[in-house]
C-alpha cells in the first residue's frame, strides 16, 4: 500500500467520523513548534524562578542577577554598545545601499560583493582580523603609525568600546544594506523627478525624498542590527574581556562558572527578551498610521541618479567601508594563517603551511568539527525550510483556521538572542528524560529554531509568488492537493528554496552563541573550536581554520549563484 493511498484512507476514515483531517496536520506542526520554540522558552522563564540546585520556586534569582551594580552595569554597557553598533551600521549601510541601488557610482558590483563578503565572514573571525590590525602595540595600523610618525602612543586600540562597536558594525551593517536596497528598488523615480523639477539637487532629493520613503526599511534594519549585536558572544569574548567592558553575554557566561547558577543566568537573560519585544513594539508604534504606500506598490519608472562630481567621493566612501569591513581584516587573516608567528610580518622565513597542516591533519577534533558544522547546518537548514514551507503554504492558501499562530511561532525565535535560546534548550532538553546534552540532535534542533524566521520569510515569499490558479488547474483536471504540490508548486519553488536553504545554511554553519552552551566532546563545531583556539591566543591556527570555513562558505555561495542566479542573497533576505 503506498503512502498516498494510506493517507487517503486515513483521511476518508476520519472524514467519516466527522473529523477534519487537516486539523491533524495543524496539530503535528504545532507540536513541532511547541517542542523547538515554546517549550525551551517556557523552561527558561520557569527556571529563572527555580531554587538553585534545589526544589521549589523563588524570586531570589532576580535579586542575585540584578542585586550587584556590576551586573546592572553590564546590561547598561550592552545597551550603549548596541546603540553604537546600530548607528555606525546605518552610517555604513545607507549611503552604500543608495549608491548601489540608485546612482551611477562605478564598481557597484564590487561593492555589493564586498558587502556580501563582510556578512559571510563570521563576526568572531572579523574580530581576530581587527586584533591583528589594531592591537595597541602589535597591530599593523599602530606599528605603521609609530614607524611613520615616531609617536609613542598607539593610534587606535581595538580593545575598547569603539573597537567593539566597529567590529560588530562591520559584520552587521549588511542587514540594513539589504533592507534598504530592497526598499529603494521599489521607490519609483517620479517623486524624485518632482523634486528635481522644483530645483533640488541629487543629494537634497536623496535626503528629502528618497531616504524618508525608505525610512521603515532603515528603521527595521537598525532594530535588527541592534538586537543582533546584543546577542553576539564571540566578539565580546575576544574584545570586551581585554577591553574590560563587561556585557550581558560575557556576564551570562560567568554565571556558568563555579558555582554554576543556571537559574540566575536564566533570570539575567529575561530582560534581553523584554528589550527585544519592546523594541519590535516600538517599531510598530513609530510606523503607525503613516502611509508608505509607495514602497509597497510596484510600477513607475526607476532611473539612476547621476552623481556628477560626487561619483568619486561616494566611491571613496564605499571603498573605505569595504576596506574596514572586509579587505583589511582579510589581508591580515590570510597573512596570519600562513605565518609561524603573525607578529613577525611578511617575510619568507615566517611563511608556513603548518597551521593548515595542524587544523586539517594533526588536530583530530578539527576535522570532526568541520564535518559537524557542515552536516548540522545542512540538516537544520533542511528541517527549518521544510517546516516553514508547510506552514507558509497553509497560511497563504488559508487551508486551516488559526494558521496565523503557526506563522507567529515561526517568527518568534527572531526575538530570542542565541545565547538565551541556548540556555532555554539547555534547561528543557539537557536533563533526563531526553538527556540530549552533548548530542548532535540538540544542536540541530536549536539551529533549526534559530533558522526558522529567515526560512519562514523566504518560504512565504516563495509561496506568494506561486498563484493558486495553477494548482486549481491541477485540481480541475482531477489531481488532488498533494499532486498539485508535488507536480506544480514544488518545481516552481525549486529555485527559491535552494536560495533559502543557502541563506539559512551559511549563518548556521558559523553559529557560535547557541553552540557554545550545547556542544559536547563529539559534537564540537568549527565556531566553538575557534573560540577555544582564541583562548590560547592561537590566532594563526584560528585564522587557518577560519580560512577553511570561508572557503566552504564561498563554495556554497558560488553554487547558489549558479543555481539561483546572482544577487540571490542580496535581494531575498528581507
Amino acid at each position, binding site marked *: 500500500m503506498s503512502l498516498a493511498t494510506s493517507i487517503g484512507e486515513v483521511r476518508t476514515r476520519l472524514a467519516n467520523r466527522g473529523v477534519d483531517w487537516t486539523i491533524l496536520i495543524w496539530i503535528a506542526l504545532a507540536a513541532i513548534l511547541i517542542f523547538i520554540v515554546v517549550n525551551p522558552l517556557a523552561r527558561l522563564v520557569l527556571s529563572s524562578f527555580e531554587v538553585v540546585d534545589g526544589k521549589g520556586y523563588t524570586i531570589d534569582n532576580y535579586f542575585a542577577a540584578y542585586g550587584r551594580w556590576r551586573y546592572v552595569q553590564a546590561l547598561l554597557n550592552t545597551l550603549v554598545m548596541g546603540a553604537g553598533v546600530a548607528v555606525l551600521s546605518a552610517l555604513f549601510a545607507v549611503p552604500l545601499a543608495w549608491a548601489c541601488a540608485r546612482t551611477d557610482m562605478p564598481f557597484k558590483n564590487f561593492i555589493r560583493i564586498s558587502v556580501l563578503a563582510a556578512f559571510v565572514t563570521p563576526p568572531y573571525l572579523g574580530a581576530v582580523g581587527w586584533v591583528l590590525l589594531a592591537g595597541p602595540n602589535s597591530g599593523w595600523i599602530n606599528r605603521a603609525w609609530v614607524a611613520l610618525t615616531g609617536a609613542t602612543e598607539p593610534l587606535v586600540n581595538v580593545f575598547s568600546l569603539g573597537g567593539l562597536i566597529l567590529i560588530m558594525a562591520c559584520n552587521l551593517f549588511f542587514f540594513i544594506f539589504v533592507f534598504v536596497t530592497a526598499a529603494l528598488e521599489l521607490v519609483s523615480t517620479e517623486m524624485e523627478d518632482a523634486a528635481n523639477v522644483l530645483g533640488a539637487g541629487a543629494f537634497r532629493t536623496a535626503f528629502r525624498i528618497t531616504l524618508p520613503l525608505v525610512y521603515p526599511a532603515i528603521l527595521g534594519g537598525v532594530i535588527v542590527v541592534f538586537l543582533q549585536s546584543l546577542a553576539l558572544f564571540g566578539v565580546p569574548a575576544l574584545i570586551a574581556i581585554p577591553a574590560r567592558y563587561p556585557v550581558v553575554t560575557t556576564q551570562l557566561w560567568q554565571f556558568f562558572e563555579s558555582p554554576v547558577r*543556571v537559574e540566575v543566568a536564566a533570570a539575567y537573560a529575561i530582560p534581553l527578551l523584554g528589550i527585544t519585544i519592546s523594541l519590535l513594539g516600538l517599531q510598530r508604534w513609530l510606523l503607525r498610521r503613516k502611509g508608505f504606500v509607495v514602497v509597497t506598490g510596484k510600477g513607475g519608472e526607476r532611473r539612476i541618479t547621476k552623481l556628477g562630481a560626487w561619483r568619486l567621493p561616494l566611491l571613496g566612501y564605499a571603498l573605505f567601508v569595504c576596506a574596514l569591513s572586509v579587505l583589511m581584516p582579510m589581508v591580515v587573516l590570510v597573512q596570519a594563517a600562513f605565518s609561524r608567528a603573525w607578529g613577525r610580518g611578511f617575510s619568507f622565513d615566517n611563511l608556513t603551511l603548518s597551521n593548515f597542516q595542524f587544523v586539517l591533519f594533526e588536530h583530530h577534533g578539527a576535522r570532526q568539527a568541520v564535518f559537524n558544522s557542515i552536516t548540522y547546518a545542512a540538516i537544520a537548514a533542511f528541517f527549518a525550510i521544510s517546516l516553514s514551507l508547510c506552514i507558509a503554504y497553509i497560511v497563504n492558501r488559508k487551508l486551516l483556521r488559526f494558521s496565523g499562530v503557526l506563522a507567529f511561532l515561526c517568527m518568534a525565535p527572531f526575538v530570542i538572542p542565541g545565547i538565551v535560546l541556548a540556555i532555554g534548550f539547555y534547561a528543557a532538553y539537557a536533563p533526563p528524560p531526553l538527556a540530549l546534552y552533548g548530542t548532535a540532535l540538540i544542536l540541530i534542533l536549536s539551529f533549526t529554531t534559530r533558522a526558522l524566521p529567515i526560512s519562514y520569510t523566504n518560504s512565504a515569499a516563495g509561496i506568494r509568488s506561486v498563484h493558486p490558479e495553477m494548482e486549481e488547474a491541477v485540481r480541475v483536471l482531477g489531481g488532488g492537493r498533494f499532486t498539485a504540490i508535488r507536480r506544480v508548486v514544488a518545481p516552481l519553488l525549486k529555485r527559491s528554496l535552494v536560495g533559502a536553504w543557502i541563506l539559512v545554511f551559511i549563518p548556521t554553519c558559523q553559529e557560535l552563541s547557541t553552540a557554545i552552551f550545547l556542544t559536547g566532546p*563529539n559534537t564540537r563545531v568549527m565556531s566553538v573550536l575557534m573560540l577555544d583556539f582564541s583562548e590560547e591566543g592561537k590566532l594563526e591556527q584560528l585564522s587557518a581554520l577560519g580560512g577553511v570555513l570561508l572557503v566552504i562558505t564561498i563554495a556554497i555561495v558560488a553554487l547558489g549563484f549558479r543555481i539561483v542566479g546572482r544577487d540571490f542573497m542580496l535581494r531575498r533576505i528581507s
Partner: protein
Amino acid sequence: MIGRMLVAALLVATWSLPAAAQLTPDAEKALYEAAKAEGSVNWYVAHYSTEIAERYGRAFTEKYPGVKVNVVRATSGVVFQRVVQELRSGPPQADVLASADISHYLELKRRGQLETYRPANSATLIEPMRRIDPDDQYHAVSFGLVVLMRRTDKVKAEDAPKAWTDLHDPRWRNQIALSHPSFSGSVTTWTAALNKAYGWSFFEKLEKNKPQIGRSLLDTNAMLKAGERTVGMALLQAAAQDQDKGEPIAPIYPTDGGVVIAGSMAIVKGAPHPNAAKLFMEYLQGEAFDRLQSQDFFEPMHEGVPSRTGLVLKNTKLLIISPEELLKAAPEVKDKWRDTFGN
C-alpha cells in the same frame, strides 16, 4: 635559559624512594581489553596547550591501538563549567578531567561526583606526587610553575623584572601580559598565592600599569610573540618550550617565588568509558609518559627521569597554595579581580 640560571640538582634527592609496585602486565592487558571495547576516552584538559594535549593523546593511542583520545582543550574554568553542566543534566560526556585549579576537584569530590580509583602506577611516583588525595579521587599529573617572562629582543635580561613586585614599576605601563583567573586555573592559583604573599594591594598597584588580560595562561605567550606586550606572567614550561623553539621569549624565575601549579586529574563519576579512563590514568602516571612530558619542560614526577629545566626546587623559593586554601580563596579573589580590573 632557566637551566643555566640555576644549578642543576634533583628535587627528588631528599624524598623517599617509591615502592616498586606498578601496573602488572596482566592487569594492564585486562584493562586494555576492556578499554578497547569502549573504543575511546574523552579527555577534558586545561593545563596543556592544544598541541601538547593532542600529541599526548596520540602517544597513548600508539601504545594502546584501538583506544582513541578525544581531546577537548579549554581553560580550567571552561572545562569545569562544561563538566558541571553535563553532570547536572544526566550522565556526563567527560571521562577524564585534568586541569590546574585543584579547588575544582574538591568541589566535585564534595558533591560525590568523582570516581574513586587508585592507579597502580601511582606507586612509582616520587613521594610528593603520590596519592595527593588520600581518598584516591584525584591525582597529580604534572608539576608546573608560574613565573615571569620577557620578550628577549625588546627587554634585556638586566632590565627585566626580577620579582613579581617589579611589575609595579611604571616602566611596564601597557607592557604587561596577564590572564584571567575566571578562565585559567593556573591564574586563579597565582592570584591566590600573590594575594596571600602581598595582600590585594599587589593587584591594585598592578592595575595602574594597565596590563592586557587574556583568558588562558598560554595567551600571554601569544601576546608576547605577537609583540603586543613585552613582559608577562607565564607557565614556566610554556615559556621554556617557546624559547626552545627559537621564539624570542625567555622565562625569568622571580626572586620572590614561582607559584606551584599542581596539574591534577580525576575520573568523572558515571563516565561513559570508565575502563579507558582508568587505562589512560595509568598511562599518565607511568614513567614512559613522564619522559615524554618532561621533554616539554614539565618537572619529572619519577626518579630517574631527567629534568629539562634543571630547576632546584628544594633550593628555590616557591609559593604554594594548598587545595583547601585555594577552595576558600578562589571565589573571593575572582570577585575582587573583577572589581579591580573591571572584566
